[in-house]
């Protein structure tokens, strides 16, 4: 213990920081991003904050969560920086730290991966059900109910029932967790 949240965030984002080390603040990434309208901090500004260790500002913002991995910034950055990958690292850090504003995305991804771990492939119905239960938001499933029913009626998803068999990819997932710590 004794480590502040800020220190932990710093350690987790050290790699992301290295990735954007040669940023010249030209703003091409911001100009290329389709999601800036929904970001409180622009991508260019975020790299600046990252390089100057303003982790609290980054992790109290929603910007990196809004990234939809379109790879425009990565493609166009004049310094050839892997910006989409840096965004992903921030998402990983936010998810590991269980940050509040990332909860919805994080639960979505975790439910998805639980399904993969168990079956090797995604069982969409199961993972959506798990996601809704984890969110404990009664209104949320309703927003998807229409689509869900349509998919069911076309035989595209199949209601899943939890069963107790050993997960298909459990060994791989456990090994990854062991190596990553």
């Amino acid at each position, binding site marked *: 213990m004794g480590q502040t949240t800020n220190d932990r965030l710093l350690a987790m984002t050290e790699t992301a920081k290295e990735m954007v080390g040669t940023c010249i603040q030209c703003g091409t990434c911001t100009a290329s991003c389709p999601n800036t309208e929904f970001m409180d901090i622009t991508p260019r500004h975020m790299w600046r904050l990252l390089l100057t260790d303003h982790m609290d500002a980054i992790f109290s913002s929603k910007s990196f969560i*809004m990234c939809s991995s*379109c790879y425009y910034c990565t493609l166009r950055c004049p310094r050839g920086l892997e910006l989409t990958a840096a965004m992903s690292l921030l998402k990983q850090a936010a998810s590991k730290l269980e940050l509040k504003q990332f909860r919805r995305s994080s639960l979505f991804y975790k439910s998805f*991966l639980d399904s993969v771990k168990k079956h090797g*492939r995604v069982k969409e119905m199961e993972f959506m059900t798990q996601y809704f239960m984890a969110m404990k938001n009664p209104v949320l499933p309703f927003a*998807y109910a229409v689509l869900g029913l349509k998919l069911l009626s076309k035989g*595209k998803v199949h209601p899943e029932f939890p069963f107790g068999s050993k997960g298909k990819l459990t060994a791989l997932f456990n090994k990854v967790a062991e*190596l990553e710590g």
Partner: protein
Amino acid sequence: MNYLYYPGCSLEGTSAEYDISTRLLMAAAGVQLEEIEDWSCCGATAAESQSHLLSYVLPARNLALAEKMNRSKEILVPCSACYLNLKKTEAIIKKDKPLLKKINTVLAEEDLVLKGEMKVRHLLDVLSNDVDIEKIKAGSHHKMKDLVVAPYYGCQCLRPFKIFDDPEDPHSMDALIQATGASVFDWDMGGQCCGASNTSTKPEAGMALVGNILKAAHGADAILTVCPMCQMNLESNQKKISHKEGLDLDIPVLFLPQFLGLAMGKTLTDVRLDLNLSNTRAFTEKAI
């Protein structure tokens, strides 16, 4: 021509019609596909936002399975998200040997080894570079000549790897569309983002991007896609966005191989147009 085939999870479920029409079209073009035995999920966009290592291990498992089959050095992938995950893994293990070693430590749990011999190809790459376009021309007798269709590429088959098309101004579908007699809708939204999983997790942001694409497609007879995620986003949100914007944004959305298959004389049932979520009637009335 033969390829190993990686369908991916969506093609088994929500995008079954993409799988069915891809197999059908390839058979018609004389291409053989052999499914990778016991393939598993590539991690989609979930793994990379949770764990760096897992985001490479999941695709790597499939590349290792493909190497084990060792019947062809190329893997054909129709889903753009799967394609990019597999491609990223193909690329990084050539440079990052410590990562390859780590991946192999994990894969050893299943007695698998990854050497890095496989080449990953997107369906659109194979259609526009390997398949003989004369076959599509000859099979379709200009059947689609009354149609104007909008090619939609999305992101992950174009970026960040520049393999078979211009990542900013894609045109690889043009020749395929024209081979059927149809015209290409003139727009600049082909390579724009559909919002990916934002439509589920951050609907306000995701819907804005889908709305822009649907609005720009006004005047086209259909949108063609090459990715299950794009297809789902463009098809399943039309009513919601139309209602919100007070516009009629209804438009048929088809997977490219469904369109090419129909042009080459396959029936609506063959390419499973009944499975599409958008209203395809306007398209079928004009096309058939």
